[in-house]
């Protein structure tokens, strides 16, 4: 469902972030993207979110060529992709419920739909009791659960997680991984960029390793690092 074909991305300042990437990510797959800082993980994600355009190559999403998309059409693609960030990016002046409802409001969902679906998603991430709390009253793990709830409330086909456990202690990180796995089992494709070696090693999932803008390894049941 996601195909990178000979993708090259060179930024205006001359930095070649991605150099001839060829990838095929199937529907419902769970993929780790690993690599040191500057390896090209962020650029890979930005390409999918249409934040940047590739310099050359082709990019397909759901069988559609999205290499070049008109600005007007970008939101339509983004609605099919949920995103979770390391720093949660919640709105501090909105409650948990409102933060999640916000994602539905801005795509024009009716009040009825919002009232029906937001509680379902909140119970899925285990935050029903915290619905009326504000982000500053939550722990890091809870904040990340809210951001996951927001990412999936519009039923995306792909969930992109950019270092979702980066700010969390190992136990909480484990809980978040369980939640992401659960979402994956429901059929959502998951692409997770991470530095967390122990998580990658324990999950035994597909691992795409990037280095200096190239795919250096793509194993179906991979680990973080071969050399170890």
């Amino acid at each position, binding site marked *: 469902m996601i195909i990178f074909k000979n993708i090259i991305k060179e930024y205006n300042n001359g930095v070649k972030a991605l150099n001839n990437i060829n990838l095929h990510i199937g529907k419902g797959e769970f993929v780790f993207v690993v690599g040191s800082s500057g390896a090209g993980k962020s650029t890979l994600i930005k390409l999918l979110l249409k934040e940047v355009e590739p310099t050359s190559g082709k990019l397909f999403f759901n069988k559609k060529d999205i290499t070049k998309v008109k*600005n*007007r059409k970008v*939101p339509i693609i983004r609605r099919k992709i949920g995103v979770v960030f390391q720093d949660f990016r919640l*709105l501090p002046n909105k409650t948990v419920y409102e933060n999640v409802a916000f994602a539905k409001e*801005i*795509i*024009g969902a*009716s*009040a009825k739909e919002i009232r029906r679906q937001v509680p379902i998603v909140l119970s899925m991430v285990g935050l029903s009791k915290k619905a009326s709390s504000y982000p500053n009253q939550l722990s890091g793990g809870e904040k990340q659960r809210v951001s996951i709830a927001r990412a999936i409330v*519009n039923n995306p086909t792909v969930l992109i997680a950019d270092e979702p456990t980066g700010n969390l202690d190992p136990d909480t990180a484990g809980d978040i991984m369980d939640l992401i796995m659960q979402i994956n089992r429901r059929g959502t494709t998951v692409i997770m960029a991470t530095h967390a070696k122990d998580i990658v090693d324990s999950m035994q999932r597909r691992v795409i390793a990037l280095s200096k803008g190239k795919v250096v390894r793509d194993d179906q049941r991979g680990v973080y690092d071969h050399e170890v």
Partner: protein
Amino acid sequence: MTMKFRILKSMIKQGFVGMWRNRMMSLASIGSVTSALMILGMVLILILNINNVTNMTKEQFDEIHIYLKEDITDEQIDTIENEIQNYEGVLSVVFQSKEQALEIMKKRWGEESDLLNGLEENPFPRSYIIQLEDIKYADNVVSNLEGLSGIDKIKYFKDIVKRIISVSNVIKNGSLIVIGILMLISIFIISNTIKITVAARKKEINIMKYVGATNGYIRGPFIIEGILLGTIGSALAVILVDVAYQYIYKILNNRLYVFVTSYMVPSDDIFIDVVIIFMTIGIGIGILGSIISLRRFLRV
């Protein structure tokens, strides 16, 4: 449809919130729109009144009075009349005999007209009063008349009209420049005000983009904020200009300057026009201001 309405409702609400959040800048924006439009209003009223005066006095100005020499014959007079009738733009030519001229003068002098009775000889010349279709023909007709023999004097009022028009043109052009500058300042201030709202909501906008909000949805509240600032500014200007004009009108009326106010356009006649003009310009300034502040920001 209901979805669009719901979105619009939340946008309007956010527009108000944004305006309230930086009250001082909003006040500055409203003030700048108001002052630009107030000056526009004054100029507009001035021009309207000048036009009114010129229109009302035009009938007095589109006449040409020619006085004939004493020694010309009746045949010559007939030729002159026929000649004049053929000129372009001449509506009518009326002959005034010496006796008629004397009668008119007597009427004008009223009680002192007895003085005229003592005259041994009628001193008034024979004359023609030429009525023009429009004042614009005056120059041509006069230059033709100058070529005729038997004419003593030509009197017409083009000069006065010309002066009024040129004065009003100077006022018009000068104030257009001032208004233009004030409008640019208003746009600049509004765009800065909205930039502050945008900055305050940067995080929210960022999230909106990732969740797939359309650019229109993101821009909407800011454009509405601009429209609100422009609308309030122009509404204030309408009220202030109207009150000021009515006040001046009343003072002049009370102080027996009725001859001035009789030439003035009553404020009711122009109120609707002023409202339409002000609202259009105010809203236009608001929209422009917000578009300028958003143009660079919302790319991603």
